[in-house]
């Protein structure tokens, strides 16, 4: 389990990250969400030890993280790149060795990952000759190469086509299945929603919400949509119900409690036909907008 405890980073006059605390449990994939400048990258850099925190600390398995632990973390920085003039297999092998692998293991693993991502024919190709998408694949391989204890990935999906996103997601799931905690940041909220076991929302350097998507949704206000066969104007008069939007036979409403909602449904049925009565589940982006605006 990877933990951030009160991480804070102060630049000259800006507090980029302010008292950020969250955990990435073993085998869980946590999405790190927030707008530009929310402090995601700064936080991830502090988790990796590339940047020293002004205050707070990072823990690994319940104790302070060490240099040796971090050598075995897989990291994909926001500003990414590889040596442009070196062959892709050679430099992945080099990176694997820096992560403590033997020459043989590093080369074998780099080769099999390159083959898996369809780069098997281009092992000797210089990185600068690869397409951007393939460079991105090589970059991902660099992060997972060293049999990582944990994965910290800054925007790993940006620049990938849908097929590559799926490949990547499978790769990450293999790691979580082996108990590796995975933290990744993304602007693609639908993707985060689909992949993640939990979410941490950062806004202006602070954690404004965190939990599983269910938990986050649970905290959202109760909303229903009711669609009738006739005009729904009468709903306005029902006590305990706030109408958000009324359009002929369809109304969006916010009942005070679940009981009020059920009573409303009973009345609707007694007044005539009901086409639809359903709970409105806010999308992650809606929740995000709400917490960010708060």
């Amino acid at each position, binding site marked *: 389990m990877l933990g951030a405890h009160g991480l804070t980073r102060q630049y000259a006059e800006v507090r980029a990250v302010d008292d950020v605390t969250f955990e990435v449990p073993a085998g869980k994939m946590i999405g790190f969400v927030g707008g530009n400048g929310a402090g995601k990258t700064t936080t991830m*850099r502090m988790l*990796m*030890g*590339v*940047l*020293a925190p002004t205050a707070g600390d990072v823990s690994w398995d319940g104790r302070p993280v060490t*240099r040796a632990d*971090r*050598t075995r*973390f897989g*990291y*994909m*920085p926001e*500003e*990414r*790149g*590889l*040596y*442009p003039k*070196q062959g892709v297999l050679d430099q992945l092998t*080099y*990176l694997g*060795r*820096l*992560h*403590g*692998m*033997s*020459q043989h*293991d590093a080369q074998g693993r780099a080769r099999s990952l390159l083959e898996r991502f369809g780069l098997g024919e281009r092992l000797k190709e210089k990185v600068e000759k690869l397409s951007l998408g393939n460079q991105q694949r090589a970059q991902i391989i*660099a992060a997972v190469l*060293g049999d990582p204890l944990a994965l910290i990935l800054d925007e790993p999906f940006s620049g990938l086509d849908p097929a590559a996103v799926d490949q990547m997601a499978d790769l990450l799931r293999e790691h979580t299945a082996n108990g590796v905690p995975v933290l990744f940041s993304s602007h693609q909220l639908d993707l985060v929603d689909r992949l993640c076991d939990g979410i941490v929302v950062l806004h202006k350097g602070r954690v404004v919400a965190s939990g599983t998507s269910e938990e986050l949704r649970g905290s959202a206000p109760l909303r229903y949509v009711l669609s009738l066969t006739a005009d729904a104007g009468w709903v306005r008069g029902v006590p305990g119900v706030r109408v958000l939007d009324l359009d002929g036979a369809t109304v969006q409403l916010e009942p005070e409690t679940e009981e009020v909602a059920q009573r409303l449904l009973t009345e609707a049925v007694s007044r005539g036909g009901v086409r639809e009565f359903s709970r409105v589940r806010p999308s992650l982006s809606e929740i995000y907008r709400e917490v960010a605006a708060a």
Partner: protein
Amino acid sequence: MSTTSPWSLVALRELQVRLTDRNFLLGTGATIVVIIGIFAVQGFLMGGGAPSFTVAVTGEDGATVVAEAREALQETDEEAVLEAVQVADAAAAETALTDESADAALLPVADGWEFVTDGEADSQLQGVVSEAVRSTTLQANAEAVGTSVEDLTAGTVVQNRDISGGDDESRFVVWVAGFAMAMLFYMSAIMFGMAIASSVVEEKQSRIVEILAAAIPVRALLTGKVLGNTVLAFGQMAVMGAVALVGLTFTEYDQYLSTLTQGFLWYIPFFILGFLALACVWAAAGAMASRTEDLQATTMPLTMGLVLVFIVGLSLEGTARVIGSFVPVLSTILMPMRLLDGTAAWWEAALALVLTAVFCLVTIGAGTRLYRRSLLQTSGRVSLKAAWAGGE
């Protein structure tokens, strides 16, 4: 899992990248060819091998004189050859001269000897033969009057003493060697220093630096880079020095081989420490740039400093030169020169080395600090002040 330390992996990569770089190999190869060329031309122009003469004589007396002359000649050059050929008479001797089977003829005449040549006489040959004639005749005359040559010449020996220390030739050789070593240091320091700086900025510009910094300590990255390039600079210097010393044996200056080898061996530690003293500063200059285009600005103080060291090092004289030979980096140029011309004792060299080593520790500390603090600033140039004060 292997336990290879990260800095050695970094150093190995530096070596591998440079040793497979065509430009580097071509440049080094070309320089070595030029050095070999200089010595080949020297050997061809100056030496042309040891002198070899044949002198025609008409009798036993002539042959004795020539044998005496050969001994004198071989005292200055033991490979020199001087042969006597017996001919029937003066006419036969002249024939031998015109058909070039003899370089000169030594013929007895009424009041002594005649030294006959076809054209201008070789001054060296004429010198040793005349001297041999004089000494053999003197000996015969001395015996005739009942005394000995030693008695006759007692007290006539004049010994030369040159208070400038060494003759013109040795001063010239020592100066050339000193200049070559100064030049070699200047070129290596700039070339490999620049290699360190651009290798650092390449990692920044390609953005791989954050992956590296996350995987291994920044200090290991710096150490590997500096040591890798120091090994390369030293290797190139050693090869060029060895080629030059071997080349020397093919010229007539080979008598200076032991002096120059000794000077060169002293030069090695000065070279290494002088290079190391600047290496971390070069790395810092690289880290303060964020693109290759910035390098020229951030490395300017270093290149200017080295130009200054080179010019000042070659122009200092007297006391200033002695003082300069203890100033770190400047000492890499001046102390080996002073050792070569014999004006410095070994303890002075050792002291200068210790001073350079201390200076090294200071620059390594400062360079590392600047490097660490500017390495991850990937947007724009980092000013010296900001780099020094900045957090990590």
